[in-house]
């Protein structure tokens, strides 16, 4: 499979053209890092003496979407916002595994100083506007970032992710209509893993083809293979170009599969063993590593060493975060407000 040639045809990923495969290997490594991080999180969460509190939603199986997005993302002007399944995107945009797991431990070294938790990984330095816990609550916010990008004429675009459960919320209707009306440069992406918590699409959406949900908003829309990072880069890249050119929003259904449950308490009884086995054949990491191997971008030895390196990085990050301190108790009063009161403007 001539991956390199395919990539060269894509204007949106010109950066990687001269690649000797290093860009592709980095992408593969990030997908592997996310997977390893999530599987280690699963182990930690389910161990006795659980150190990760609260809800926790794992991204395993959906890595191609986060890594494909990060390949297109301009940290100086773009914005990204997410639902609560936000670990993968945060790592892909450069959050250190330590800052991510420390946040899930509630530690002061966490990206949000232990005030957000698993569902709320924020990193303002790269335009990561966090994960949001209320299903669909982030859709108007993503619209607002794009509105600001357009207002300030930065050429930036906003990626606003949601799960397939979010399309049934009222904010979906309001935000997509406004985005199209105002021609805001927002790319709405459903990470369609086929099930809203435990309710399959067949039982939650009258229209099975989720991309068609955008028809009423006069917005370009399509289905994307969310398990193929190259496809994600190509299809999302076109939406990014549209946004940067001032042509308005796009709606994409990135179809994928989550290997883990909705959250940690989910035994996934709604899935058959056959379905899960079949899904593994479409594992985004296997697809991409096979492709890179076929293109002579990576050898089996390199793959093994990548695996070892991400495993070490994750183990080290978890150990560091474990040793990190909790925030001082008085810190609970900080960060609620930006001003001090009484407030008298100058």
């Amino acid at each position, binding site marked *: 499979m001539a991956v390199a040639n395919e990539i060269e045809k894509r204007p949106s990923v010109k950066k990687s053209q001269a690649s000797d495969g290093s860009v592709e290997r980095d992408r593969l490594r990030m997908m592997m890092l996310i997977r390893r991080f999530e599987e280690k999180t699963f182990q930690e969460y389910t161990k006795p003496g659980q150190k990760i509190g609260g809800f926790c939603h794992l991204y395993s199986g959906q890595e191609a979407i986060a890594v494909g997005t990060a390949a297109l993302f301009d940290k100086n002007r773009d914005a990204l916002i997410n639902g609560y399944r936000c670990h993968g995107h945060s790592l892909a945009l450069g959050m250190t595994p330590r800052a991510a797991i420390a946040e899930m431990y509630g530690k002061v070294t966490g*990206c949000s100083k232990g005030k957000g938790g698993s569902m709320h990984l924020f990193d303002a330095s790269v335009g990561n506007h966090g994960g*949001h816990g209320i299903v669909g609550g982030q859709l*108007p*916010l993503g*619209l607002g970032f794009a509105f600001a990008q357009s*207002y300030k004429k930065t050429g930036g675009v906003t990626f606003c992710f949601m799960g397939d459960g979010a399309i049934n919320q009222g904010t979906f209707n309001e935000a997509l209509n*406004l985005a199209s009306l105002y021609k805001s440069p927002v790319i709405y992406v459903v990470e369609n893993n086929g099930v809203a918590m435990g309710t399959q699409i067949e039982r939650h959406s009258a229209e099975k083809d989720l991309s068609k949900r955008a028809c009423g908003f006069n917005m370009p829309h399509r289905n994307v293979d969310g398990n193929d990072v190259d496809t994600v880069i190509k299809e999302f890249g076109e939406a990014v170009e549209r946004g940067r050119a001032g042509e308005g929003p796009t709606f994409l259904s990135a179809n994928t599969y989550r290997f883990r449950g909705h959250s940690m308490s989910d035994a996934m009884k709604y899935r058959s063993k056959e379905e899960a086995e079949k899904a593994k054949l479409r594992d985004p990491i296997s697809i991409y590593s096979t492709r890179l191997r076929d293109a002579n971008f990576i050898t089996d030895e390199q793959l093994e060493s990548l695996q070892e390196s991400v495993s070490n990085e994750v183990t080290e990050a978890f150990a560091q975060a474990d040793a990190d301190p909790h925030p001082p108790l008085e810190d609970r009063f900080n*960060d609620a407000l*930006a001003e001090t009161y*009484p407030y008298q403007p100058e």
Partner: protein
Amino acid sequence: MREALRAAMTEEMERDENVFLMGEEVAEYNGAYKVSEGMLKKFGPKRVWDTPISEAGFAGLGVGAATMGLRPIIEFMSWSFTWVCIDQIINNAANVRYMSGGQYKVPIVFRGGNGIAHQLGATHSHRMESVYARIPGLITVAPSTPYDAKGLLKSAIRCDDPVIFLESEKMLNDTAEVPEEEYLLPLGVANVERKGEDITIVSYGRPLQRVVREAVRHLVEDHGIDVELIDLRTLRPLDTNTILESIKKTNRCVIVDEDWGYCGMGAGILYKIQKAAFDYLDAPIDYVHSDEIPVPFNHYLEEAMMPSVDRIVSAVKEACYR
């Protein structure tokens, strides 16, 4: 009042191009209540935005735009309509800064008419102050005069925190002298509107304008009770210091609002002051509020449910053992 609000927005939009106005009918229709009349013409469509009827959509848009460095003024036709977008205000405007460990700030003003505005029925007559003033991460402001409205709104627009700005449709026609030159009023500072020795009355916004001032006049002129009247101006953060200093002098206090009593705004104010005031009190703090029923449509029933001059006078007399 209408002109004072418009002047505040206009001055701030002239001062800072990141300030914009958005809401239902604010642009081409010139405002559902004409507060923004002429602003589209003055500033153009890039600064004054009409929206579809999508409160959650445009409230959230404002929050998102604020975290990106803009300073949105989001007008709600009525605060009663914010029940359908309350997630955007409470979970997003108020929480994003805290949940991100202080990485983002949310300089936004949400403004519009609040409370009972005569025969609008139960759904359009909500007094939202106790809903929003209890939320950490939000600032809640309720002006009672055109002068205050202008000075407070200008400060709210410059403030880096999300501000809930509670106006009243029934106050928009109020007239008063408002200076042409720039002035700003602090957020979180109450105004002692009338100094007195006998009792402290605490109120704010529409109830203050509708009945409290008149009740104070009766109490002073007809009953010889020297009332100290405190206009809170800001409901969160509450200026407990000004209230307590007053009670230390008068030893008596009555709180008046148009909220429901149980978990109402006044109940929250009571919680904030009763312990510190206890040793100085010669009578229990009383709370005059609306009857605990949905707001009736009928004019007489609606009037009857709300605090009246008589109710305030009798509560004050009782607190003064008169």
